[in-house]
């Protein structure tokens, strides 16, 4: 019974002996590997609540390849600051940050560092917000409390935002709460003026606009006096904010072109985006004294009073 079949199997085994052995060996190896992997214990790491690379605002996690770089970078930067190697630390900063936050002046940067690093400092980092290719971290800098146990000192930390930005193939740092520079290049021109919104520097809690204004008239052009309110505004859609440079007077002589830095309070994590830049009270005046008492009289003799809205979107 089944002699034929048995013979067939025997022949088959004889013919495919090598293949069968190879298959069995591979199969055994797989079983052994599985068994060993099952036995392998994951090393237990110290349980902490520290999640430095998880954004506190939207729970976004920085990819590991970037998070390692960022940690190393901040550590290196703080190390330079602690050791007083200002040039090296300055070189880690982005071109925009050097320009906007420190006027490309190492001495100004040194002043900023020495104010914070009065002694050896420790730090901790926490991812705050991520967008496009920018990672914003909250960096807390504090005294080496372990050396003193806070004897005779207050438990206080210094906090600011660091932003990591790509500059070419490199990642560079933005410090001093400077987040980003955005080129705007919006131009509005009429018979009286030419206004160019060149760029804006985004800081953690404010935005600074670089505005170039040309007075095309033969009269004095006033866009902002020190004594009037609501002259220069930033339209955020449902709210308008006044410029924060309270003492900034924008008055141009006939034919004059000047560049101004105009700031508005705006946190980087606010949902509302700037919609328009508004010059609410432009006055083309025959005479301008800059004195509040004469303002009404000067306005009465004005060549033109108008407002101008420059869309930013």
């Amino acid at each position, binding site marked *: 019974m089944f002699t034929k079949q048995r013979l067939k199997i025997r022949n088959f085994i004889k013919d495919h002996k090598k293949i069968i052995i190879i298959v069995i060996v591979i199969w055994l190896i797989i079983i052994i590997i599985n068994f060993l992997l099952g036995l392998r214990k994951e090393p237990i790491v110290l*349980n902490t609540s520290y999640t430095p690379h998880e954004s506190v605002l939207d729970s976004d996690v920085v990819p590991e390849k970037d998070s390692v770089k960022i*940690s190393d970078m901040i550590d290196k930067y703080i190390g330079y600051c602690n050791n007083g190697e200002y040039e090296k630390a300055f070189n880690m900063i982005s071109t925009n940050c050097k320009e906007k936050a420190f006027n490309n002046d190492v001495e100004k940067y040194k002043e900023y560092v020495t104010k914070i690093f009065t002694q050896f400092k420790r730090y901790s980092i926490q991812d705050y917000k991520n967008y496009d290719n920018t990672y914003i971290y909250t960096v807390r800098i504090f005294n080496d409390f372990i*050396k*003193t*146990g*806070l*004897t005779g000192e207050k*438990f206080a930390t210094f906090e600011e935002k660091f932003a990591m930005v790509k500059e070419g193939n490199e990642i560079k740092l933005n410090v001093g709460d400077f987040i980003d520079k955005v080129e705007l290049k919006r131009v509005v021109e009429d018979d009286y003026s030419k206004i160019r919104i060149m760029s804006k520097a985004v800081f953690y809690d404010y935005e600074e606009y670089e505005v170039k204004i040309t007075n095309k008239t033969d009269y004095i052009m006033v866009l902002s006096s020190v004594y009037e309110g609501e002259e220069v505004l930033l339209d955020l859609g449902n709210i308008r904010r006044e410029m924060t440079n309270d003492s900034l007077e924008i008055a141009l002589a006939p034919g004059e072109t000047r560049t101004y830095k105009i700031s508005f309070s705006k946190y980087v994590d606010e949902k509302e985006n700037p919609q328009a830049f508004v010059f609410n009270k432009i006055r083309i005046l025959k005479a301008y004294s800059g004195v509040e008492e004469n303002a009404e009289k000067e306005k009465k003799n004005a060549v033109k009073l108008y407002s101008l809205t420059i869309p930013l979107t």
Partner: protein
Amino acid sequence: MRRKRKENLENQRINLILACIVIMIMILNIFLLIKCFSSNDNKKVEPQKESTVEIKEAKEEQNLTEEEKGKLMTEQERMTKYIVEFATNIDNEEFSKAYEVLNEDFKKTYFPTLEEFESYCRNVIGTGTLTVNVKNIERLGNEKTGNLYVLSVDIHDVLRDNKKKEEKTADGEKIEEEDKYPYVVILERDYNDYELSFSVNA
């Protein structure tokens, strides 16, 4: 005819290979099933009404070493453990053990010798009837330089501090929050690998 026969033979071979594979998988399955049943039987013996996951976790935890268990503790539990150990050593007058965990720079500045530390403990902190109550823990530091914790700790000798409070109340002096709860700073590198310092009363 011959060709057809050859083809049939080829088909049979393939079938046979497939059959072999199926048999292997079956053997493997039977093996896994037996293993699974035997482990279920073991669990039935245990007189516990917990869910399978809980039993598994409990079993895993049983297999852990003390160090591994410590690593799984929450930060709050670990910090409390460290500070309680420190206070217990002072309470039991084992000053050298408490002195050992102090940060070197802190020791150099405030307690260059063990005797000075001992004297401070006896005169300022107290021994014998110490109680420890962690009021607040704030986490600082980073993974590169170590995790730093600042704790507000109510650590006092029950008998002695009661007297003090009475004196202060009699004088009408307001006890400041900072006076009540001195700081303890702990730098933890790993489980049970830490340094400690505290705000010293002048």
